[in-house]
């Protein structure tokens, strides 16, 4: 008898095999489809990497990529600067300020970006003498500047709403606490309210950047050669569909990288909030 060994190893019984339910089969079928299309996409791109198309057009795509980055970066920057006064006006108690700010935000958020771009780029021609008189006609003549102006105005409306929402979201007690400590209002705003508001605004700001990257493709329609513009030109010259597939890969890559960085960034900045 083996009674001497007192400790008997008790192990957990193995988990029952997961049944092949209809959902599971369906899920695996869908995944198989994604994997097959993913592999064929990679194969297609890899087999074309030495093709004449890529040889000829990769510098053009690189240039377009940087133009897109430039448009997005500048528009976001100008939009951010412009959004502060708009958000302040929008939150103001005086109708004189809040009503025009509301109209501005409503207009830019309620109409398509493409229509706004056309309105500025083509519509500026109607006011050519006036614009020449003040000397800012060169800005409206160049599609690139026009696009940046249109995108900045558009994103400033969205950013103003994000900012206003975030600031109004900070509890009143924070203002009152600062007042009780004898902190002046302006210092309280910058040192107490704004840091808390920006944390709330972080996620919508990230979404706004992604929206801007995607929206910047519209610049291609008004003859700016950003990534989309170069893609369209390459396609119209070569009639090779891989033009669009490369562009799709680059755009997806851009958005995904930004999303990942932003998630990290947010996790880092909000680490004190995790309990």
């Amino acid at each position: 008898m083996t009674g001497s060994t007192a400790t008997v190893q008790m192990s957990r019984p193995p988990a029952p095999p997961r049944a092949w339910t209809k959902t599971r089969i369906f899920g695996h079928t869908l995944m198989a489809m994604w994997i097959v299309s993913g592999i064929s996409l990679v194969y297609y791109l890899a087999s074309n990497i030495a093709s004449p198309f890529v040889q000829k057009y990769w510098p053009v795509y690189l240039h377009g990529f940087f133009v897109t980055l430039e448009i997005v970066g500048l528009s976001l920057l100008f939009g951010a600067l412009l959004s502060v006064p708009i958000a302040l006006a929008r939150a103001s108690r005086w109708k004189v300020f809040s009503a025009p700010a509301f109209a501005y935000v409503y207009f830019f958020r309620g109409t398509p970006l493409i229509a706004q771009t056309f309105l500025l780029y083509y519509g500026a021609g109607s006011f050519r003498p006036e614009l020449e008189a003040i000397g800012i006609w060169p800005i409206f003549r160049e599609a690139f500047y026009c696009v940046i102006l249109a995108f900045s105005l558009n994103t400033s409306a969205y950013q103003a709403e994000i900012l206003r929402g975030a600031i109004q979201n900070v509890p009143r007690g924070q203002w009152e606490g600062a007042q009780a400590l004898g902190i002046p209002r302006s210092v309280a705003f910058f040192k107490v309210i704004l840091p808390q508001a920006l944390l709330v605004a972080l996620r919508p700001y990230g979404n706004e950047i992604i929206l801007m990257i995607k929206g910047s493709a519209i610049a291609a329609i008004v003859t700016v050669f950003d990534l989309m513009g170069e893609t369209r030109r390459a396609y119209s010259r070569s009639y090779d569909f891989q033009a669009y597939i490369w562009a799709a890969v680059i755009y997806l890559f851009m958005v995904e990288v930004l999303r990942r960085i932003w998630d990290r960034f947010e996790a880092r900045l909000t680490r004190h909030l995790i309990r």
Partner: protein
Amino acid sequence: MNEALTLLSFGDLGWGDAIALGTVVTVSLALATLPFALIIGFLVALAKKSNEPSLKLAANIYTTIFRGLPELLTLFLVYFGVQIAILNGLRLIGVDTYVEVNSFVAGMVAMSLVSSAYMSEAFLSAFRGIPQGQYEGGHALGLRHGQTLMLVIFPQLIRLALPALGNSWLILLKDTALVSVIGLSDLMRETGIAARVTKEAFLFFGIACLIYLVLAMISSVGLSWTERWSKRGDTAR
């Protein structure tokens, strides 16, 4: 001022009829896309909240792709991609002909893909707002899973998802303007033609913006009405 009114009037002298027709096309494209976007979005959300990891992953890949691609690029991919696929398919069976994909249909497909990816997020967050007890209650009453979903969960889900879905509708309405680029005679294209012919670009694109604004306003009124209607049971409680 009078000149502008003449340009915008209906009849031989003005562009009113063209713009009105374009508006109808814009609205009908958005309305035709909506049911597809809603149904696909709902199914994708179901897949995302399922317990099956493979299904969840497959649905997440779908939304990652269509929320990450610019809408304009999705449109071109669908428009030219389908055309090339059809041509190659025809060539395989020995027919050598030229096919042009209808831009309305291409726009509908592309917009459904993009919009459903956004709407699935709306449905998903609404699903999170429904307590587990609702499923258990349905189960306790002897309802099958599908019945619980349709009779118990869905009516509550719609109420929770409506604000976000309304937002998606407004985005969809604006995104249809992009379909003008592949040649659909929608509001954007008709005003563009008028602007080019009359050289009054600011007037016509301004009108286009205003019409989009009016459409958005009408939508908001309709949406808030629908929201109130969906909440009519709340007051009794």
